[in-house]
């Protein structure tokens, strides 16, 4: 992780199954000291040594920012994914020494808000665990609406209700419960900021409704780390480093570059921070842009790519790096 972020040497101090899909991991500093303070909404990038592969996945910190003796993250098992979550679930045991990045916050609270309205879907609850702790500690005004498939998959729903009572509203898909979004959005006091984290569909729905109900863009915050999608393998030439590399089916372009000894910068590894942006020198084929960083115009132009999440299908691709 040389060009990404400063790293921390940690040891896994606990692994706690939360429900059938989600497991919580606790990290402490190997030297026993305090971990760096962070702000609600921050994530860390966890380095996983999986055989000869190194995976780097971002996870939101969900503990209280006021307590830095340990960091906690929650990982949802994704059986169809590229294997990072499976590695966490299967290989990571208490006592394992790991390396994680310093916290980075790409989903921070807007501290000017008079009220924070939070919408979470599924595992998208994790950043709100820290944000609600932070706000509650400071007497902040917040309200959390949390949708999950079933009660048993309502990760931390019980904890949140116990802590915050009626400030937390739950919606279970299997009972046909749905957020009455238009009503919710229309009934907020002036100065409310909206935060949404969950599946892409939910984020798009909330952003659309907020926009059409006249919420100013700056008051709507969202976090969606697109996990890199698997896809057809392809070859890339890197002009500056003079290398030609192969991107495997289960590998992201960023990972392939790293494996080849090129160290592009990154922060989120999820297509949202802009740090890994790379110029395309020439291409013959089709880009599969999965990022949320580049504009549509950039996407159409084919002049830029975000190697952490985007792919390519075609004859040839030359990038600047």
């Amino acid at each position, binding site marked *: 992780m040389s060009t990404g972020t*400063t790293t921390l040497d940690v040891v896994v101090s606990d692994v706690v199954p939360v429900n059938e899909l989600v497991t919580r991991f606790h990290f402490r500093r190997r030297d026993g000291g305090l971990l760096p303070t962070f702000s609600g909404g921050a994530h860390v990038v966890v380095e996983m040594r999986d055989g000869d592969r190194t995976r780097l996945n971002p996870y939101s910190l969900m503990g209280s920012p006021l307590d830095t003796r340990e960091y906690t993250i929650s990982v949802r098992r994704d059986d169809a994914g590229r294997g990072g979550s499976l590695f966490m679930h299967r290989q990571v045991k208490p006592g394992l020494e790991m390396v994680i990045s310093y*916290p980075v916050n790409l989903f921070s609270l807007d501290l*000017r808000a008079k009220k924070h309205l939070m919408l979470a879907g599924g595992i998208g609850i994790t950043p709100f665990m820290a944000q609600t702790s932070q706000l509650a500690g400071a007497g902040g005004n917040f309200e959390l609406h949390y949708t999950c498939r079933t009660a048993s998959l309502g990760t931390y729903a019980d904890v949140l209700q116990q802590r915050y009572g009626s400030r937390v509203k739950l919606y279970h898909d299997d009972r046909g419960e749905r957020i009455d979004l238009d009503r919710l959005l229309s009934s907020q006091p002036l100065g409310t900021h909206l935060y949404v984290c969950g599946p892409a569909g939910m984020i798009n729905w909330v952003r659309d409704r907020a926009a059409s109900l006249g919420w100013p863009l700056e008051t709507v915050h969202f976090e969606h780390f697109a996990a890199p999608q698997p896809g057809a393998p392809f070859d890339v030439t890197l002009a500056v480093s003079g290398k030609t590399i192969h991107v495997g089916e289960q590998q992201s372009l960023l990972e392939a570059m790293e494996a080849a000894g090129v160290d592009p910068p990154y922060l989120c590894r999820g297509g949202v921070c802009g740090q890994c942006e790379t110029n395309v020198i020439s291409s013959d084929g089709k880009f599969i842009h999965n990022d949320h960083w580049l504009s549509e115009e950039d996407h159409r132009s084919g002049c830029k790519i975000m190697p952490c999440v985007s792919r390519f299908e075609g004859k040839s691709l030359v990038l600047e790096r």
Partner: protein
Amino acid sequence: MGITFRKETFRDDYTFRNSPDHIRRFPFPFNEDSYMYAVNIEPHVVGPKGSVLENLIDVDEHYVAEMQDRALVLAEDPLRCQSLPHMTLAGWDLLELLMEQQALGYPEHFTLERNGDRWRWINRPLGIDDTFTFGDTSTLPYGPMEYITRQSQGDFCILDQRDGNLWMDAGMVTTQADWSLDFDIGMNFFEWHAPVPLAHEKGIFTRALKFLTNIQQGKPARRLNWTMTINPRLDTSPENYHKWGPDRATVTPENVGQKVHLRVELQSFWRLPRSNAIVFPIRCYLIKMDELVTQPKWARRLHRVIRDLPEELATYKGLTRYRPTLVEWLSKLDDGSPTSPGFGPD
């Protein structure tokens, strides 16, 4: 052994001086005989012992006098220190950063004791011994930012990050080179750099903003900037232009060495942990020509740099009026021999 703090002034009788040790540690900003504007940003890591980079927050012999000067500026003009209401948390972040760094670098002068939220801060040079509750503003005589920056050298701008931009929403600015916090407060990065006339300059600002918004916790960055000031005046604010502006016409061949000062700003950029804001400390170092030329390498090099400075740059830095006098004076100290590479004196 600790630092011996000087008794000196930055106004009226201008008794400001650098001791010989401090002349040698001056952050001379030119590593070659010419100066080209560049975005010279590098990681802010600890540098050589005895340099201004020995600690990430530098405290030097001017500390006490600078803090007294700051108090005078604030008494006249309280708007030099402002913090919008949502920036209080960032103020606590900054308080922690500065207390930690000062106590770490100068244990003989500063002590920080933490007992949960109960903190005790001892600042021996200023005779302060306060116990307070971290996070509870009512336990300090000022807001957290004002409290700690009345005890820390340099100016501090705290920038809130939102909507992919940075907002100048808090600051303590009393030693600035001709800009005003009161004017910039609440502005975003593009607004406070406005007007930006050329598209290509816009590109530079967009890149700079991208760099700054990506500053990470645990990975501060820094850059050096320089200008010149007539008389060792810390406060060269637009509000006080009438006091310092006319000084530029007072430089004569006889007083160059005493009046003309090289002013170097060490700017660093830090991500603050609780608020996710960025703090931008701007530490100002002054050295008069008579002191600077005690290092022959610097004298020769400065002569060449100032002589060859492009006209627009000289105008931008406000040197036009006295540049010929200064170059003439420095030329007598330049024997034409080569200068060694690097910033340091020989």
